[in-house]
């Protein structure tokens, strides 16, 4: 064992308590990173298994080749097929079986009248396929649906909804369909369902009636199997039989495509988001680790100097310190890796707790998932220790004979360089953020500026720390007398260290603040949009997130309109089309009626003149495409393409979206008809309560969608934001925890370093309680500096992000004072908490030993 390695190893063992904080921060960061990656791997594999199971007995799938890529719809929207194709395929040579398959959305209502599922996973409905090999579901109880109104539901939905064979309930397609449960099915041999999704199987005729546009003679796909041909041979065999615009693909390809659709969109976004938070945690850990090593090396100056005097080369001293960091990195990363599996389970539970269920299945780990976190953790440890190690290697041998070096970060040449670099970064970053956000807006410029600003803040930290601590701590001497004064001076005596400690917390608080401000602004924008553009008294919606839910029955709006209490009721549907080459969603409504319950702003042209080939377009969207009244626009639906004329322009950014077409224009192209909103205006003299009660009674017959007042509607539009914010807070808690570990660690080291001084204070009469208070107040001061900096930086960046992402220029900005006050209080309280252990340790000092220590 070489001398460097031995010295490093010994020093590690001797200082293991001091390095505990470092180890913990790496463990936490790596665990989070691993957890994210394991969760990503597992989900991807689970989805893969799900789709493979769903296509297990299927050798080929025939479907329409007409597909529209629409945002938020994995796989896009596809046109239906003629059912007659099935019979032709069934008789083709080599085909063992061919079954029509109808797939759509259907929200099952449970025994308690509440929707089953609908928070994320899809709520599916379709036909029961009789061929057992082509049907991934198996009957566990009861029988297949044979008569109209009979249905088989999957076991998971039955459990969640409290439904049994023989029960009768409602399926919202979104027209309420009365069904009787005649059977309960498992997915494959024994799963409760296809992941957490729900599935209701009807007879083919029922499924066609409720889930296809024409209501008869149409199917979504045809599933085939062969007993003697390979999948590829089967596809080749049937290809010549297919009409134009219809394609066939193997079961394996269909599985791969479904997996890719989900992985590429949902999972990609999901894991990227989590990785960002893992990155924030590791960034915070970097500051904490760097600080620990900087302090430990400073404290070890004499040891390193002695080594240098005795003939240790610079590289040997460097190697010793770096080796220590590497060892810690490897060890802590390995621990973090183990913890990561727990984190993966925890993350899954977190999402389940907020109602966003993910598929279940065994944990899957790829080699990269092991290697990357290990490597990252080790690199973070070694990288953070590099600068302190280099400083250690530069130790002059003569330093062994002097007292420990003083911190000169606020003076001298290096301080000048620091001030200059920090000033340049800040001076470049601040205007870039402001200009990027306010004019343009340019996300690139804003992000670049934000990064420069962050770097500038970190570099300027030590310069600002002394001043900030003096200002923030100004009331302390009056509040806490000598104890307070000492705490304030202790926090200011080593500005570099205070800054580095506070920076970790600052980054954490800044990100929390950023999301808080951004979230509040998004909420305010949504709120504002609703209150500005929703001119009705009541709204009927079927709220759902992700791929769940199925909207409101289009028959509800006319029924509501017929109520004596109601003056106007307009259903707003969603259509899909490719306009100008891009898949997009269209608002489908009676435009003239819609204008009565929503505020479309100034209207150019005429909404009444849309007809079956007219479009109403928001002014911003029209401007982006260079359209004016009378411009012709190519619109491609799932089935056919056509040319539409722009007949009206309105103020966009509201509930109506950017495009409006009439119901007549949409009807030939519709897929599964549903309204997202029924906007209601009441007759004069009818109170909101009366109206709500009347519509509520009526809505019961339509599957019980929610009836909301304007305020409730605005609130619920923004409820998704609150859900996302709670997830973000939970994820950021880790970064803040690491930052607090950093504060505790620095203080523990400082207490160790000041043993003599503390002993002296005790010797001249400071009580244990005073000593504890002194250390705690120092901790609070450091935390206050970090929190204040984080709040300022986060609020600025939150403003910038809100402005930069608001391309339409219609968004609102909100500074949620209450929430930010909570963030500030939590930061301070956490600082006090972080100071507890170091304070207790300091108070345990034996006065004599402290004074006599060498």
């Amino acid at each position, binding site marked *: 064992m*070489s*001398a*460097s390695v*031995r*010295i490093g190893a*010994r*020093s590690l*063992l*001797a200082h293991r308590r001091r390095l505990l904080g470092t180890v913990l921060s790496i463990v936490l960061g790596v665990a989070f990173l691993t957890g994210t990656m394991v969760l990503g791997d597992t989900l991807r594999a689970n989805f893969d298994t799900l789709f493979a199971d769903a296509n297990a007995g299927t050798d080929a799938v025939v479907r329409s080749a007409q597909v529209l890529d629409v945002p938020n719809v994995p796989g896009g929207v596809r046109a239906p097929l003629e059912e007659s194709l099935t019979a032709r395929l069934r008789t083709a040579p080599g085909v063992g079986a061919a079954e029509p398959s109808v797939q759509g959305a259907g929200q099952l209502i449970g025994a308690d009248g509440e929707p089953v599922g609908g928070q994320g996973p899809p709520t599916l409905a379709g036909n029961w396929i009789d061929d057992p090999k082509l049907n991934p579901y198996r009957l566990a109880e009861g029988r297949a649906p044979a008569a109209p109104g009979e249905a088989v539901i999957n076991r998971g939905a039955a459990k969640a909804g409290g439904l049994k064979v023989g029960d009768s309930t409602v399926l919202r397609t979104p027209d309420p369909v009365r069904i009787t449960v005649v059977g309960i099915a498992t997915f494959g041999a024994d799963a409760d369902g296809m992941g957490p999704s729900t599935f209701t199987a009807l007879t083919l005729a029922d499924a066609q009636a409720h889930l296809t546009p024409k209501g008869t003679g149409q199917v979504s796909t045809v599933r085939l199997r062969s007993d003697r041909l390979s999948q590829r041979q089967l596809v080749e065999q049937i290809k010549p039989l297919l009409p134009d615009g219809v394609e066939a693909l193997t079961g394996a390809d269909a599985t791969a495509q479904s997996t890719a659709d989900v992985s590429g969109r949902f999972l990609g976004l999901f894991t990227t988001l989590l990785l960002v938070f893992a990155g924030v945690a590791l960034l915070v850990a970097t500051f904490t680790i760097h600080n620990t090593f900087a302090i430990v090396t400073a404290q070890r100056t*004499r*040891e390193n100097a*002695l*080594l*240098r*005097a*005795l*003939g*240790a*080369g*610079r590289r*040997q001293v460097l190697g010793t310190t770096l080796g220590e960091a590497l060892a810690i990195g490897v060890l802590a990363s390995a621990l973090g890796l183990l913890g990561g599996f727990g984190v993966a389970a925890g993350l899954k539970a977190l999402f389940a707790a907020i109602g966003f269920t993910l598929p279940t299945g065994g944990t899957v780990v790829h080699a990269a998932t092991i290697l990357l976190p290990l490597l990252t953790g080790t690199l973070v440890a070694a990288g953070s220790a590099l600068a302190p190690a280099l400083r250690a290697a530069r130790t002059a*041998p*003569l330093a*062994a*004979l002097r007292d420990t070096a003083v911190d000169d970060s606020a003076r001298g040449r290096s301080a000048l360089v620091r001030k200059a670099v920090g000033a340049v970064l800040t001076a470049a970053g601040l205007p870039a953020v402001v200009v990027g956000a306010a004019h343009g807006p340019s996300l690139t410029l804003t992000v670049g500026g934000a990064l420069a600003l962050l770097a500038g803040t970190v570099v300027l930290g030590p310069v600002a720390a002394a001043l900030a601590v003096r200002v923030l701590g100004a009331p302390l001497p009056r509040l806490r007398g000598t104890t307070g004064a000492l705490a304030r001076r202790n926090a200011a005596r080593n500005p570099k260290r205070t800054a580095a400690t506070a920076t970790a917390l600052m980054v954490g608080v800044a990100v929390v603040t950023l999301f808080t401000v951004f979230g509040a602004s998004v909420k305010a924008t949504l709120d504002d949009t609703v209150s500005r553009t929703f001119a009705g008294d009541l709204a009927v919606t079927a709220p759902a997130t992700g791929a769940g839910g199925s909207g409101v029955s289009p028959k509800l709006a006319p029924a509501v309109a017929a109520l004596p209490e109601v003056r106007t009721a307009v259903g707003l549907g969603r259509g899909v089309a490719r306009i100008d080459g891009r898949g997009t969603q269209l608002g489908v409504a009676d435009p003239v009626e819609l204008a009565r319950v929503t505020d479309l702003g100034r209207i150019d042209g005429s909404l009444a003149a849309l007809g079956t080939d007219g479009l109403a377009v928001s002014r911003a969207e029209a401007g982006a495409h260079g359209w004016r009244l009378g411009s012709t626009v190519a619109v491609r639906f799932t089935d056919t393409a056509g040319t539409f004329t722009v007949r009206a322009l309105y103020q966009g950014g509201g509930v109506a979206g950017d495009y409006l077409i009439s119901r007549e224009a949409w009807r030939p192209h519709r897929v599964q008809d549903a309204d997202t909103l029924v906007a209601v205006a009441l007759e004069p003299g009818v109170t909101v309560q009366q109206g709500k009660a009347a519509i509520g009674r009526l809505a019961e017959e339509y599957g019980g969608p929610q009836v909301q007042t304007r305020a409730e509607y605005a609130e619920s539009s923004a409820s998704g934001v609150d859900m996302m914010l709670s997830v973000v807070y939970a994820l950021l808690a880790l970064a803040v925890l690491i930052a607090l570990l950093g504060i505790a660690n620095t203080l523990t080291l400082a207490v160790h370093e000041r043993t003599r001084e503390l002993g002296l204070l005790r010797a001249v009469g400071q009580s244990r309680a005073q000593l504890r208070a002194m250390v705690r107040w120092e901790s609070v001061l450091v935390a206050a500096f970090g929190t204040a900096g984080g709040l300022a930086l986060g609020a600025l960046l939150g403003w910038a992000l809100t402005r930069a992402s608001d391309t339409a220029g219609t968004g609102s900005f909100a500074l949620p004072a209450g929430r930010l006050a909570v963030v500030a209080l939590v930061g301070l309280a956490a600082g006090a908490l972080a100071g507890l252990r170091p304070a207790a340790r300091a108070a345990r000092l034996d006065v004599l030993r402290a004074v006599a220590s*060498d």
Partner: protein
Amino acid sequence: MTAAARVEGAVKEYGAGETRVRALDGVSVEFAEAGFTAVMGPSGSGKSTLMHCAAGLDTLSGGRAWLGETELSGLGDRELTLLRRERIGFVFQAFNLLPTLTVRENITLPLDLGGAAPDREWLDALIDVVGLGDRLHHRPSQLSGGQQQRVAVARALAGRPQVVFADEPTGNLDSRSGGEVLGLLRSAVDTMRQSVVMVTHDPAAAGYADTVLFLADGRLVDTMERPTADRVLDRMKALDGRRGKAVAR
């Protein structure tokens, strides 16, 4: 007798402008091979600076320094490091030992740093001489001050360096422990033909040396061969008196 180390016209200045301090002001001395040289002088006389410069811990502002035939000025950090590792032994006043290493590991530290295998017989003999055979696996914190300094002496001798430089080795010790450490250095000179240079302000310590050099205000002011504690004390008093008169005048 050839010199184990020597300096010629050594000048060392700290600071600049008005705060400039001249710690060494043209000192030329030779440290005898296989001899025990003590460097004496009042605080601020430059005796420690002389040692640091002669040992390659610090660099001269003017003049030249040699270790054996090697001239120190002009050597880079790497060469100086190797020189300290292989050809010089150090005993400091305090903080001589790495607290995390055992006694034995501290003794072999310079050899380990160079990756050299220690000569077992020599090491055993050394450990025998310093009398710490039963403490080899203790940590420095478990030893008394005198024992710690004896370990430091053993470490300085372990690599059989050209010169052992000792900076106030007995400064923190009581007279009995100090005597033991000085006896060790003395016997290293007598039985191992080791060259030793020791900075001290204690006349009793200087009494163990073959030659005593007296420094005052950065200059060599006197030398004494075969000193005794009493004669050194007298000479010191005389020097102090002369200095006092010089200040008075």
